[in-house]
């Protein structure tokens, strides 16, 4: 086991402090008894209680969740289809253009994406609300799904699909029964990525929404402008907790899976050698 040098320890400490100190402070102050965010007045969980009775926050949370689930699901379907076509489609006319265009929103400033969507919605006379936020979120998160799925498909062994076709599966059956189950982890992580992006988007949602719908980030942003309340700290702590436990569970499960897989492969080889 390598021991860390003192230089490593220092750089590690600075790095992690830089990353996590702000969040740590936020979480600590969510348990603050005082209404003043910067003055510690003892431990309390009352802000969590108040949060649960704050209708406006709960409504916003519900809208955000709805938007995130629907938009990330649509984005996953569209993004997977796009990735499949771009990786598998061979050299069709305009392939380079298409693959460049699908990734453009990755680097496009959000303000521009938001503005262009707003102009589109006004242009076609669409009432702005939950539906328009869903559409906007689908638009920008689809390319992320496509990136994740296409990088998995690039290493996907083509002969697996050919074997399915060879055994009598139609191209769609080959996709549904062989390709999809194998790339499922990438599709799921694409969905999670789209879900998270939708969850914390402020800029595009602000452009795409109307008076009828407010998402949680928009709600937090607008209430912070009137002063930071400990309720927001509590809300943010809950969000951090949810995201962190999600990430930890996923990594533990996949780690366990790969360890188990390697172990079983070793056993199989040993049996043969005996």
């Amino acid at each position: 086991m390598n021991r860390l040098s003192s230089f490593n320890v220092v750089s590690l400490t600075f790095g992690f402090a830089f990353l996590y100190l702000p969040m740590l402070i936020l979480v600590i102050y969510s348990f603050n008894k005082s209404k003043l965010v910067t003055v510690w007045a003892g431990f309390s969980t009352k802000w969590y209680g108040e949060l649960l009775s704050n209708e406006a926050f709960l409504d916003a949370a519900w809208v955000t969740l709805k938007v995130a689930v629907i938009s990330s699901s649509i984005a996953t379907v569209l993004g997977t289809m796009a990735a499949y076509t771009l990786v598998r489609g061979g050299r069709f006319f305009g392939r380079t253009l298409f693959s460049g265009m699908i990734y453009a929103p990755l680097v496009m400033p959000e303000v521009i994406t938001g503005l262009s969507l707003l102009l589109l919605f006004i242009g076609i006379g669409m009432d702005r609300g939950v539906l328009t936020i869903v559409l906007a979120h689908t638009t920008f998160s689809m390319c992320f799904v496509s990136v994740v799925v296409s990088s998995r498909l690039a290493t996907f062994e083509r002969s697996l699909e050919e074997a399915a076709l060879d055994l009598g599966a139609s191209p769609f059956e080959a996709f549904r029964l062989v390709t999809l189950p194998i790339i499922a982890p990438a599709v799921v992580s694409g969905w999670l990525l789209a879900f998270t992006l939708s969850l914390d988007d402020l800029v595009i949602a602000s452009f795409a929404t109307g008076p009828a719908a407010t998402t949680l980030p928009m709600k937090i942003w607008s209430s912070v402008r009137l002063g930071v309340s400990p309720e927001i700290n509590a809300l943010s702590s809950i969000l951090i907790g949810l995201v962190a436990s999600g990430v930890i569970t996923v990594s533990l499960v996949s780690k366990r899976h790969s360890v188990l897989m390697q172990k079983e492969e070793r056993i199989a080889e040993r049996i043969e050698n005996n």
Partner: protein
Amino acid sequence: MVETVFEPWADPNADPLISFKNVTKRFGDFVAIDDLTLDIFEREFFALLGPSGCGKTTMMRILAGFENPTLGSMSLSGHDIAGIPPNKRAVNMMFQSYALFPHLSVWENIAFGLRRDGVAKDVLHARVQEMLKLTRLEKFGRRKPHQISGGQRQRVALARSLAKAPKLLLLDEPLGALDKKLRQETQFELMDIQEQTGTTFVIVTHDQEEAMTVASRVAVMDEGRIIQVATPEKIYEAPNSVYVADFIGDVNILTGPVRAVDADTYSLDFGGTEPMTAASDRTFSEGVTAHLAIRPEKIGIHVERPEGPNSVQGKVLDIAYLGNLSTYHVQLPNGQIIKAQTANTRRVSRRVFTWEDPVWVSWSATAGVLLDC
């Protein structure tokens, strides 16, 4: 009792299972298959042999339906199959990488093709069980592909491709991933299974020993063309070109102008002290350059000049001891090196020749094949 020899290719009335007529396949400017005509018959074990890039894999993919010929026609039991997609052909393929579905158990892998055909449940169970038994995998049905060894995976791939009882089974380098010992055992297993099931096998390989072992006929390919199609014995003993002679096994080639001695005997002046005589079915006109191909094991090596026509003196340059055989590299006065092979039939024996020894190498007039290209 008269035993009939299995050689449908010699029967002009036999209907081929597969027939290629002037098939050409181009990828852009690259010609992968060049005007190829070939018949493969039912119950044959047919090997496509050649170096990488010779078009053997393309040909197999055309048979499977993954590629379509650019020109020409191909038929399977008399029906034109050009343009029919792979899922609608009575042809199955065993992939080089095995392509086992990692998320399905061995049992489900084998059942995959039958399920696509909507086979009744009890028939499906019986058939999968039969395949597991055929490939000695009964104990492994529940395992996933990563839970079994390489050799077992190979057998699952075989069982899966045989499950639908295809008219034709294509095997793409089926033993390439196995180590040498396992490969040799598996070759015999493949032959047994081929005989038991009566399926026509077409195997693609770059391993000539493998092709010779398993196949009823071998097609040697180069640059999209078939150079020779014949039984392994004919390919080895009567190659039709220097390319085939050189590709299959070890060979000595002597080149020079030929002169007819009598109706089927020629003398060849390869630049040695005296011309060699060689029998030939082929006719050569006076003075054309010909190549005499002789296998090393047909060349004798002696201390004294032996009786008979074809003897050359040289000196031992190298000795390779291979256990069962020893190969001597003998350098002739004109600089050419002749490989001569002797079987080590006795366990304890003194080696007669050593490095730099002057020796005589000799062969009979019928030992070699006289070729024009």
